[in-house]
């Protein structure tokens, strides 16, 4: 199956791909998958090893919340001042938009997610929801327990689908996912250029598309598009400042677009929905493929819920250097607590590294654009003034 009409222009194909996660296109691939008699598993966390889900014959489909302001049905379960992504994700379950999901899975990454999974389990929507244990630190002892967690996921999936996950299939899936990661890395590599051929908003469009499409189809399409992207040119008003964006559960490209429209070039991100989704490969040559998968997931650039804040900061600083960034804009989702805490750890490190940094609250859905833009514009002015 091809993603689009081959007679379409490359730009049209790119547009179709990067807009896959827009509300009007979002369920398309999942519904196609269902038509083939196969199951779809909704994922709420980038730590659930997707290779296993795929090896069980299910489509791992990252749940995006409703992008609307109101979440009246979720409001029954969750007070307003709790993680807005979780509320909007719950809204999309309760309003029937996700009734096609056969199952859902996530980790107890933080209280909001744990309780969201608890609610899904209690109300049995989807019919089956699985909570996976994820340690918040990576060391010898926790890694061993995490491997057990991954094995438990494997057994759960086998029971759910009746499919035996063979090592051969698992290794094949690792190949597919590593190819996806490599392709996305190549796209990100292009962003290092002085005139990046894709915008930050487009990059987020691609990474969020990857998480809801059959990965092989995504890979084939992206591979064919790569040569085009390498030569693509986008008109830039100015090439500086170049920014790295931080945030979590940020899946609306409108937020990146807003920063770019304010006069910056967004060349890198620390989003769980972006770079952190595909960073680092699973070691394919490992004798024990489950352990290799476990290692990749627990050791990839971490969520702010992980204790290794200093490593997270160091990773961001490294990216800032590699991507030649002039500053960092963080858009923290309101009422999602960990970034509020990590903020102070980051300030300390970024100040030491001499990197300008701003952190602003945002909603989950696209809102308060005017206020945000004013803040970002002031930040950009500050960077430009400093450069002079």
């Amino acid at each position, binding site marked *: 199956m091809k993603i689009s009409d081959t007679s379409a222009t490359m730009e049209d194909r790119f547009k179709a791909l990067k807009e896959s996660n827009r509300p009007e296109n979002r369920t398309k691939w999942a519904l196609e998958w269902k038509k083939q008699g196969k199951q779809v598993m909704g994922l709420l966390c980038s730590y659930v090893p997707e290779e296993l889900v795929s090896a069980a014959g299910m489509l791992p489909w990252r749940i995006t919340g409703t992008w609307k302001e109101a979440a009246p049905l979720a409001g*029954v*379960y*969750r*007070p307003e*001042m*709790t*993680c807005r992504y*979780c509320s909007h994700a719950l809204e999309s379950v309760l309003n029937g938009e996700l009734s096609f999901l056969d199952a859902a899975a996530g980790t*107890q990454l*933080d*209280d*909001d997610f*744990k*309780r*969201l999974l*608890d*609610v899904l*389990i*209690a109300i049995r929507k989807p019919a089956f929801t699985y*909570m996976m*244990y994820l*340690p*918040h*630190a990576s*060391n010898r*002892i*926790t890694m061993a*327990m995490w491997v*057990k967690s991954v094995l438990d996921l494997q057994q759960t999936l086998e029971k759910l689908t009746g499919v035996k996950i063979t090592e051969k299939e698992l290794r094949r899936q690792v190949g597919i996912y590593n190819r996806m990661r490599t392709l996305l890395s190549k796209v990100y590599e292009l962003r290092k250029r002085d005139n990046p051929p894709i915008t930050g908003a487009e990059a987020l469009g691609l990474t969020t598309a990857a998480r809801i499409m059959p990965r092989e189809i995504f890979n084939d399409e992206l591979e064919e598009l790569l040569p085009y992207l390498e030569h693509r040119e986008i008109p830039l008003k100015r090439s500086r400042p170049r920014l790295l964006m931080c945030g979590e559960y940020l899946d609306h490209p409108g937020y990146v677009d807003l920063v770019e429209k304010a006069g910056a070039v967004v060349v890198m991100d620390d989003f769980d929905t972006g770079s952190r989704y595909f960073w680092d490969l699973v070691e394919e040559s490992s004798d024990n493929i489950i352990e290799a998968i476990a290692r990749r997931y627990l050791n990839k650039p971490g969520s702010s*819920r992980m*204790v290794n*804040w*200093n490593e997270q900061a160091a990773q961001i600083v490294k990216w800032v250097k590699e991507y030649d960034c002039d500053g960092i804009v963080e858009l923290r989702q*309101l*009422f999602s*607590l*960990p970034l*509020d*805490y*990590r*903020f*102070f*750890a980051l300030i*300390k490190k970024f100040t030491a590294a001499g990197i300008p940094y701003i*952190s602003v609250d945002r909603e989950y859905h696209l809102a308060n654009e005017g206020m945000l833009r004013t803040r970002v514009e002031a930040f950009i002015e500050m960077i430009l003034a400093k450069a002079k």
Partner: protein
Amino acid sequence: MSNSSLSGLAYLEYEVARCNRRMQRIKDNPDPSKPKSNVLLYELERDFRMEQLEAYKAGKPFGLGTQTGPLTRSLGLVPWDAVPAADRTHGKEATRYFDIIRREGMPEHTCDRCSILIPMVLRGDFPRPSFLATTNYECIPIFMANLIVANLLDIPSFHIDRHFKNYKAKGKEDDELLKYMTDQLGEMIEYVEAHVPGCKYNEDMEIEWQHYERLYVQQAQKLWKLKAAIPCPLSGRESFREFRPSSLYPDPVKAVEYMRQYVEEVGERVDKGLGVAQPEERLRLLWSVAGPFYADPFSYLENMGVAIPAAEMTIYNGWFSGRESIWGDPWKGRKLSPLEEEARQMDFVWGRAGEAWVQTHIDTCRDLHLDGIVYFIQWGCPVTSALGKIVADTVEAQLSIPTLFIEGRMLESSIYDEKDFNSKLKDFVDICLERKKSHA
């Protein structure tokens, strides 16, 4: 903010003076309606603050081992308890801290106690610890608040991660998870001994502290049975008095004695048929999670004939009701090693999956013959607030009792509207009474 500035004494000195003042007041003007054992309680609190004060002045190791005291103390650490300390700042003091929090962009949408402890420690109002253990056992805010303190003040810290499964529940003892926790604690001991000068693990000491902890909890189990009495002998304030483990105090023998005396006094009240609800007990409610501690909703309810026999805010109801193993209970017929014991008790109800949180509400309502739940939606506490509806639906289905959701902050009072709050309580009392009538 260094140890040498000794600015961390402000809070401790204030608390010592406060305890002394209270003891003096009781001595000069004894209030027969208050428990006589309160004198012992204030003594314990004062002695603890004095111990912290002296340790801090002398540069002795100060810190947080685990949530439980025996291991902390057997490592040679004086317990560091910033979270309960922050709880004492309600009212104006809390508002003052929130002004700092907002001005400096510190976490504001998290729960009050975790918001407040950050400026409290960073500004040196509460002493800087020499070691911090971070764990996910309670909730993200406490975990992150400890993590940020450790990170900003460069304090040696060690993370202990725990599974969400309730591995110590009677009949479900899970050896693998017990070992997981025990192994991590073992690593932590090595880390503390290597990084915190003056710390050395002493197993004999741990055994002794655990022994007193058992005696202490056994008293609390007796109290639980007394709480079931009709009319209820405890005021809402007493139900909310945070259960402080005996190992927190420098003298565990005195702590056990305090608990014994207090339980005895409550027993006397039960024998005499004394209740707190006036003019007579019409209703018994469970108050869940937290409340507006700067105000007094309990007296308002008690004057309407409503008793609050229990607060559901901790792991401890599991201990009290005997549903969860306490210190020294056998594990599949064998005695646990001191470190395994510690590992078992790290199983904290909030860190578990939702089913346990729901079940503890049902168990408490059953045990104590309750007619409804006031479920306080504390800002920034998703672990409890995002499960309220499931709790309400389950108790409704299983026990046919209603739940009131009431939103607010526990320490910061500037948005509190007493009229509105009480009006909601009154609404709810009416509904509970109607329900009770229809059940009868």
